[in-house]
């Protein structure tokens, strides 16, 4: 079974969020970057587990500049066999999806994280599925493959749904599909020798782009309430905040 895992690079979860060039671009100065946690902890780790159980291969794909290679090497250290980097500086989900779709022929399973933690679009998986005319199941929390059939549990509002679909298909991975795996020294050493193929981007338009950024307005000072006077808190929630 050939598995393709789409990985994105995102700022580390505690990174300071600031903007530059008149608030038109994210200020990467001093920011540590990581592999998007949903892509790494759930999609990639599950892909490696499936390969170890059923045989086959895992390819990681990223759309980005050469600076992303460090994140791609981590995917190889965790257990991907090879990697593709589409050399570009993507500005929209659709651009990314079209690059991935152009490289995604011949895979039995394509996995993504449920969303990235920076732009929170949750769009690329569905776009790739549409471009390849494949089924797409989002928010998978459990994935079992038997022969050419995938059984997926996914989160829906207020519960979960278990569905079945034949390969090939696209699945986005959410918490529960796998557990975070720390690469060991052998994995890190082997990653250096695994193939990382850099390919040029295909032409694709950006139809929706972020043009300016702002920070949320700061909260007003917290009002501390006497622990022995919860009636006062209830009154404030009813009359001042008007939320009860």
């Amino acid at each position: 079974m050939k598995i393709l895992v789409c990985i994105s690079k995102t700022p580390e979860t505690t990174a300071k969020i600031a903007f530059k060039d008149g608030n038109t671009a994210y200020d990467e100065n001093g920011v540590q970057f990581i592999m998007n946690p949903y892509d790494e902890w759930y999609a990639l780790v599950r892909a490696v587990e499936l390969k170890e159980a059923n045989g086959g291969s895992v390819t990681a794909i990223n759309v980005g500049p050469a600076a992303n290679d460090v994140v791609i090497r981590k995917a190889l250290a965790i257990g991907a066999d090879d990697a593709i980097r589409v050399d570009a500086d993507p500005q929209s989900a659709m651009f990314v999806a079209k690059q991935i779709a152009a490289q995604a022929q011949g895979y039995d399973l394509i996995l993504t994280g449920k969303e990235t933690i920076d732009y929170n679009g949750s769009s690329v998986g569905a776009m790739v599925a549409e471009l390849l005319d494949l089924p797409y199941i989002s928010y998978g929390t459990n994935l079992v493959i038997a022969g050419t059939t995938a059984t997926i549990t996914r989160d829906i509002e207020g519960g979960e749904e278990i569905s079945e679909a034949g390969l090939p298909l696209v699945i986005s991975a959410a918490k529960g599909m796998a557990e975070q795996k720390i690469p060991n020294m052998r994995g890190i050493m082997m990653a250096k020798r695994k193939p990382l193929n850099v390919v040029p981007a295909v032409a694709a338009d950006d139809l929706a782009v972020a043009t300016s950024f702002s920070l949320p307005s700061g909260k007003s000072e917290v009002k501390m309430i006497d622990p022995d006077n919860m009636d006062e808190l209830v009154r404030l929630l009813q009359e001042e905040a008007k939320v009860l």
Partner: protein
Amino acid sequence: MVLIYTEAQNGQFKKASLEAITYGHKTAQAMGTQCAAVVIGNADNPASLGQYGASEVITINNPNLGHFDSQTFASAIAQVAQSKNAQVVILPHNSSGKSLAGRLGIKLNAGVVSAANTLPTVEGGSFKVKKNVFAGKAIAEYEIKSAVKILTLSGNSVQPETGGSEATISSMDVDVPASKVTIKETKLQQGDTAPLPEAELVVSAGRGMKGPENWGIIEDLAKAIGATTACSRPVSDIGWRPHHEHVGQTGVAIKPNLYIAAGISGAIQHLAGVNSSKCIVVINKDPEAPFFKAADYGVCADLFEVVPKLTEAIKKAKA
């Protein structure tokens, strides 16, 4: 035309759908056009969507659309959008809306902005809309440059407004292939509280609870106000609470009207998932807990004493 994808459960339109109609109606007004709703499958009284601002409701009944599948549903919606010349397609930002939006973007060669949370700014030929990015730590304004625009609407961003009139109803035939996905089982949680992503009131707790056996006081408080329960990441990681309750940067991002957090210190990743809440109450015995800085109201005391007192005070106020 502005086209809204709606969903019903047990015949009743979901709140997210009514929000989307109100939002779509206002967007249509700004663009000088009309708002139409598409209903796939059974819903009681589709004409009632007129109350929320739809001037037209298009119903689709097709045996290949018996269960939700983004592939078949996107095909149906795209056919409606094309036959009605929709300029904007709006979907709720939920599990189905998110998986449809990307597909529709490809089918209609349309720019997609997911989780829009303000009305778009429509000026001349430009169409801009805002959404939260970096899990709520910043706001981005997006420009959609394509002729057709696709938005998913973040929950609880607008409230459904009534005051319209009955909508005209028409049915439409679509040509969709059979679904390649089979639904084996759907498990919905029992009880009458809203699912976390849609909840207006949320009571959440963290490691300060000391163990899963102590959650009774949190459930009692949630029950007293009709809230949905949530938790912090460490608590879901060690299995004290189910994964779907985890709110934060790597869990669910929520924006309820009221978020009560007990025994959660307020790590930056947790704050990212909840700081769009309208009102935050923090209960923590550590006066240095960073969560107090993000709170509207704080109670610095032992949660095991304060939470039951708060529950009693609410019951008294409601009596």
